[in-house]
């Protein structure tokens, strides 16, 4: 690690020097030290402390815990999926990318490994999670639109068209559906069943995504990217 910081501080220092004189004309007399003085000092401090650590702080290799093959797989999977999420959220949209990320990570973590022969289960699980999320999303959207339009037309009292009331109703309906699904799943897939982690991951995937959508998009009006979900 100290070596990384030595390189970083040297690069930072070169960058600072490459900026040349950053004082404004008026400040040549006024005494402003310019934009790059403090960054240059910080680059020096980083270099000095990391060089000191490089000399004095020897890593104790015995202390480093060895990472198992399964753990390495999970690290890589999480890292790759997190990067893919950042890149794909815009074209795919919030709902597909989040539900799929959640299912894949939950399932891989519960199974404690990523194996090639599990590819089919990963695929079907992702599709099922996405389908369930879309069903919940569509129900919520339908309720929202209906209440908004009806209240604007004056067919129902305006109270029902308020954002807080709509969010509450959608939240209650979604919670009811999720609870029913959870009870059904619990009856069918017991903890010792192989399918347990599969269905649990699907549940976590669609329920979490839907709740996040309700809180951030519907309650706080954050512009979550729609992507391929056009309705």
């Amino acid at each position, binding site marked *: 690690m100290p070596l990384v910081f030595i390189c970083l501080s040297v690069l930072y220092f070169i960058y600072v020097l490459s900026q040349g004189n950053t004082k404004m004309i008026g400040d040549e007399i006024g005494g402003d030290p310019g934009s790059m003085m403090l960054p240059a000092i910080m680059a020096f401090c980083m270099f000095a*402390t990391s060089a000191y650590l490089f000399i004095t702080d020897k890593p104790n290799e015995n202390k480093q815990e060895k990472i198992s093959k399964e753990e390495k797989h999970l690290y890589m999977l*999480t890292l790759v999926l997190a990067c893919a999420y950042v890149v794909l959220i815009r074209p795919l949209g919030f709902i597909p990318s*989040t539900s799929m*990320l*959640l299912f894949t990570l*939950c399932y891989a973590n*519960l199974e404690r490994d990523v194996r090639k022969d599990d590819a089919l289960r990963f695929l079907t699980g992702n599709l099922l999670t996405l389908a369930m999320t879309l069903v919940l999303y569509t129900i919520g959207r339908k309720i929202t639109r209906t209440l908004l339009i009806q209240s604007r037309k004056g067919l129902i009292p305006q109270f029902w068209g308020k954002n807080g009331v709509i969010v509450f109703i959608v939240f209650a309906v979604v919670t009811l559906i999720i609870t029913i699904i959870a009870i059904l799943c619990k009856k069918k897939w017991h903890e010792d069943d192989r399918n347990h982690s599969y269905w649990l991951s699907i549940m976590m995937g669609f329920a979490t995504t839907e709740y996040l959508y309700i*809180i951030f998009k519907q309650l706080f009006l954050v512009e979550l*990217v729609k992507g391929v979900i056009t309705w």
Partner: protein
Amino acid sequence: MDSTFAQGLAQIANLSTILWMAIGSVLGIILGALPGLTATMGIALMMPISFQLPTATGIGLLLAVYCGAVSGASIPAILLGIPGNPNAIATVEDGYLMMKKGRAGEAIGGAVVASFIGGIGSLVCLIFFSPLVAKLTLAFGPAEKTTLALVGLVIIASISGNNLAKGLLMGAFGMALAFLGTDPFNGQLRIPFSRYLAHTPLAQGLDLTSTLIGLFGISQVFSEMRKINEEARKPAKVSLNHIFPSWKKICSMWKITLSSLGIGTLIGAIPGTGASIAVFMARDAAKHITDNSKGKLEPVGSGCLEGVFAPEVANNAVTGGALIPTLALGIPGDSATAILIGALMIKGVTPGFQLFGQNMSLVYAIFITMFIANIFMALFQLAGVRLYPKILSVPSQILMPIVLVLSFIGAYAIAGQATLAGIYNLAIALGMGIIGYFLKRDNYPISPIVLGLILGGMFEENFRRAVKLAGGNYLTFFTKPICWFFFAMCALSIVMPIITRKRQEKKA
């Protein structure tokens, strides 16, 4: 005072604030109870939600999470013998022994009462001392503020972690990150590859919330993967009948309560120290008191309420203590309050005398929310005393992916309607998460980075203003007595840990 107090009260006297604080309190207790999730992480994850709320409501939510998480850590400490986070590390010995003796209910109830006393007691200190400390800053000019920021950073860098050089390196790294973006004085871009990045949100520097979420949320997800093969420890079925300890017992521990309250508040007020130091000091003081009580109190370490009470009063007293320098000076007491400062800054509120002078109603609102947060913490922890043990059996294999997604959504949501800025925030959070993971792995403290990020702006602004006012004379910092005082504090905080370590090495 009356009108500003009424204005402060008006800011929070609404259903929305109370509801959000109740949610925050429950979430905080759950976060505190789950091993691996910390108060700091909880506040970082809640920051994007607080950003969407009015200032007082948002701060109330974060304070509720903070108080709840500090107190909730005692649940696994008592039921499983493992602390939810370092705040409850000293509660384990007596708490777990009490559980084994069949007194788990009393231990949990006692911990809640102690946390409440600690929280309210330190709030009284906060109300009394923070305006006084803030008044002192009236005498501070740019030069004094520069050295004050330096003191905050150096103290935290020297105390956090067990290696001074690592702390200082992290502080410098945090400051270097703070200087990225546009120069506040002349508008010059200070980012590498500015040709390509000039028209991106990065031109404004690193987004603070995304950086904090990455450092505390995402890095923790990667760190927890090492425990992926560990089964969630389910607490043994225990009787939770006698939850509330008797008044007589509580009153008999008044010496322990007062000493722990004093220690917690004082340690909390020193930047960089935190609850993990305070709890051991409070426990030691309680041991001394019980040893000299001539049999009136049970000895600490024997599985008694005294051994639970002392650290639990102290760790919640830290919350109020840490807010004293946070609100009065703008110097955070610990990493959790550093994030609180970040939340205030995002709302355009600058802690320090300016806050006390110009926005006293908000200060009152913060005091009241702190009071409500402590009441909620006690209420919800007592009400859910039979429910929280069940939460402990939630496997981290499910929790960690949810934390990862929450971190991402939090970083994204802070950009509001600007989706492109949101995507950049995601990338910043992920990048900082990866950096944070490797730093934690090699025992580099994260708190100094956060302090560097938060104090960097204050340091630069005042440094350049001071030099300008002195006509370019850098020696201006050595002409003011207050600056000398702060320099002395800097030197002390660097030298003291070195001397202490040398002494320990000699003893060993």
